[in-house]
């Protein structure tokens, strides 16, 4: 009788042997399937050539009927579930295969939009982006994988699209969209999808679509809300008809500041793909002259009627002279008072002697200098990570909480006989400048801010400090 140990190893050997056999059988099945497909396509080609040679015979094969639609056997199989839809069918799929769509931005909106547009069989799919994939993109920019961190988003997105559908053309435009290149890039496509993340880009893309006569599928998402509409479609309004005057820069929040729940741009991006598909395939009623408003928290979708094309619109109105040359010369950053790139603004409010660097601050902490560090970020930022012994007084409530700063300073001064210094920090060094300016006006003459905020602390002092 064999011992337990021998019994177990015998069973393991048997399992290994069966697994090998299973793999061999599976490989055999794959080979046979490939062989079968090859035979089928050979037969198909033969039928085709026969029908050409024997033109006098009436067409009898099903393959001939299909070919009249321009769909190959592979296409019929790949898109069969589209073809089975009575309201979509062969006509819409053929339209889609002949269409070209440009997606500007391969981020939160562009990710799902691109995945679906590639999968559904858009003939030529263009991607514009100049960013690289970062770890903090992953929660919403689902087209990218960890392996692509640090690489261009366009490359990552194009590779994902190709792996879903190798039969369509994917075009990579690895550059920032500017007035200098927008006309040339957009003119190569039938439909444009705006999946960008800032106000000047939205005006620029809309204007460019107007001068080129292209429909624009525009989506936006922030926090827990999303918005979607189609501009410049069959006499409908453009972005400027709706928003002739740009909003103040302070009203343009960014996902990198305000946050965004990943699935929210996911939903809007999917809806953008849907609208683009409807326009490209010429089915249904595109969302022109209407706007979809999505509120994730209350699970509500509202579709509202918006104004039509404005006769006074500077881009598309009746007497406008706006043309390609005007577009090229237009300064969208100046117009909207905000940058086309997503890089955060660098405020220069304070004189250099009102500021210290993060390294200098570190030296002062080490030397035991009596001081108070006020962190002016919002409370929910402070909860993510903060410097030890800092006092969280958000900028918005600072004026009301000045007594707390005074008493903290007094506490530091006790027993030292000299004054305590007051430092202010925030995430990137903008709000801290605003705070110091306010503090100085309120009599805290020695207040200084830390240049570059916690970001510079993480970069220059403590590489292990978590950044968000």
């Amino acid at each position, binding site marked *: 009788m064999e011992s337990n140990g021998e019994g177990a190893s015998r069973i393991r050997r048997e399992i290994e042997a069966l697994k090998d056999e299973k793999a061999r059988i599976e490989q055999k099945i794959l080979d046979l399937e490939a062989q079968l497909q090859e035979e089928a396509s050979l037969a198909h080609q033969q039928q085709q050539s026969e029908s050409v040679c024997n033109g006098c015979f009436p067409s009898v094969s099903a393959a001939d009927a299909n070919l009249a639609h321009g769909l190959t056997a592979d296409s019929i199989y790949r898109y069969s579930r589209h073809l089975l839809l009575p309201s979509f069918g062969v006509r819409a799929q053929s339209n889609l295969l002949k269409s070209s769509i440009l997606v500007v931005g391969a981020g939160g909106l562009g990710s799902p939009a691109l995945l679906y547009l590639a999968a559904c069989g858009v003939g030529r799919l263009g991607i514009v982006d100049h960013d690289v994939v970062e770890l903090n993109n992953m929660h919403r920019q689902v087209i990218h994988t960890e392996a692509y961190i640090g690489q261009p988003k366009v490359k990552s997105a194009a590779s994902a699209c190709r792996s879903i559908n190798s039969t369509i053309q994917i075009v990579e435009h690895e550059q920032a969209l500017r007035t200098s290149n927008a006309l040339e890039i957009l003119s190569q496509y039938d439909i444009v999808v705006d999946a960008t993340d800032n106000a000047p880009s939205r005006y620029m893309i809309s204007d460019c679509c107007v001068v080129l006569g292209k429909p624009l599928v525009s989506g936006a998402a922030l926090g827990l809300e999303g918005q979607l509409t189609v501009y410049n479609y069959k006499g409908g309004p453009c972005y400027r008809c709706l928003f002739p005057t740009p909003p103040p820069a302070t009203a343009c929040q960014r996902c990198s500041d305000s946050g965004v729940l990943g699935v929210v*741009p996911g939903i809007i991006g999917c809806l953008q793909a849907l609208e683009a598909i409807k326009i490209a395939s010429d089915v249904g009623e595109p969302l022109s002259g209407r706007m979809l408003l999505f509120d994730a928290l209350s699970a509500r979708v509202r579709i509202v*009627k918006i104004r039509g094309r404005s006769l006074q619109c500077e881009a598309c109105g009746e007497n406008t002279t706006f043309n390609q040359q005007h577009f090229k010369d237009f300064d969208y950053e100046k117009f909207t008072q905000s940058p086309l790139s997503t890089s955060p603004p660098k405020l220069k409010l304070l004189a250099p002697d009102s500021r210290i660097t993060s390294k200098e601050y570190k030296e002062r902490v080490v030397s035991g200098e009596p001081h108070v560090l006020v962190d002016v970020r919002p409370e929910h930022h402070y909860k993510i990570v903060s410097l030890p012994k800092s006092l969280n007084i958000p900028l918005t409530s600072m004026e009301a909480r000045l007594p707390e700063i005074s008493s903290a300073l007094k506490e530091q001064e006790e027993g030292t006989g000299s004054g305590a210094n007051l430092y202010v920090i925030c995430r990137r060094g903008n709000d801290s400048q605003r705070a110091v300016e306010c503090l100085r006006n309120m009599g805290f003459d020695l207040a200084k801010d830390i240049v570059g905020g916690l970001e510079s602390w993480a970069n220059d002092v403590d590489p292990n400090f978590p950044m968000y």
Partner: protein
Amino acid sequence: MHLMLEFGGGLELLCESVKVHNVNVDMPKGADKLTMKDLLAWVRTNLIKERPEMFMKGESVRPGVLVLVNDCDWELSGQLDTTLEDKDVVVFISTLHGG
């Protein structure tokens, strides 16, 4: 007059993060109707708790804010002159740019 007011796209932050407000608004003294212009003045006094410049510019809303009366752009109903009826739903929404 009973109205339902909704704030979205970040405008709710100006009214203590409350999105939906069921309110009663009286007609201005001597007037026989309530217009959007009256309502905006009422909202600014009674609901906007901070940074009113993020909601209004002059006597209208600031650029980038869409106003919808019963799910319809107020541009189509006369903007500031739109006359409101009992139980109307008025939505103020800031346009989003993120993605």
